[in-house]
């Protein structure tokens, strides 16, 4: 084995293996339609909340929660961002799903806090304003945060 290639050539080959691994790791994430759906759903709930009908707000929140509960388990693993490949679960890791769940909970807190702040400031549509802000955070920050937080190491 030792005589076949030099250590330098072996290092170059290992670098090629690492590049291949990175190419796949870069594909970990959630599909674009998930982020857009989450953002639009968030805005819809904000607008409905500002209509002042408690039943409508509760119903919209329940529907949103049910749809998200149905969709999230199918995409939250981060293994199928596109239809071009399925990333190994060891590479996507459990942190992707945890990030999505904690992220949605955090966005809920952010929305309520934002709406309360907007209302205290005398805004006419505080929930709509807060949900628009959070929807912007989802679309601009969601994919980037996910890429930054999820580990990219493949367990041997």
């Amino acid at each position, binding site marked *: 084995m030792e005589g076949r290639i030099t250590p330098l050539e072996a290092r170059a080959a290992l670098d*090629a293996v690492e590049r*291949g*691994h990175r190419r796949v790791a870069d594909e970990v994430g959630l599909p674009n339609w998930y982020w857009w759906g989450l953002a639009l759903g968030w805005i819809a709930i904000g607008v409905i909340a500002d209509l002042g009908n408690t039943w409508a707000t509760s119903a919209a929140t329940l529907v949103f929660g049910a749809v998200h509960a149905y969709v999230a388990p199918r995409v939250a693993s981060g293994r199928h961002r596109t239809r071009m490949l*399925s990333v*190994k679960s060891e590479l996507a890791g459990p942190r992707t799903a945890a990030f999505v769940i904690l992220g949605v909970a955090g966005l809920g807190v952010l929305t309520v806090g934002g709406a309360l702040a907007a209302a205290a400031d005398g805004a006419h549509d505080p929930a709509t304003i807060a949900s628009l802000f959070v929807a912007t955070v989802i679309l601009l920050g969601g994919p980037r945060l996910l890429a930054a937080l999820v580990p990219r190491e493949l367990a041997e």
Partner: protein
Amino acid sequence: MTEARFDELIHQSTRLSIVAILAAADWVDFAFLRDQLALSESALSKQLATLEDAGYLTLERPLRDHRRRVRTKLTPAGVSAFRGHVEALQTIVGDRAEVPA
């Protein structure tokens, strides 16, 4: 731990890149490999055929988009050969202590 085994077939640079990508995925679309490795369809097909003949990967057409899409994935033999080859490379560069025969 995987046994170090240098694999001449996998070591060829294009095939090594293909297998490295496949090893990190459950399956990969033909177009993804083609685009990532900047290969022509015929060049990629040739390399995939070589690996398929060795029993290292399988090609399949998903039920949806049957005509247009081809997926490929490593077989257990391919996974084993790739891991053994990486172990062998690591032994050569000194990242692993070689186990005496």
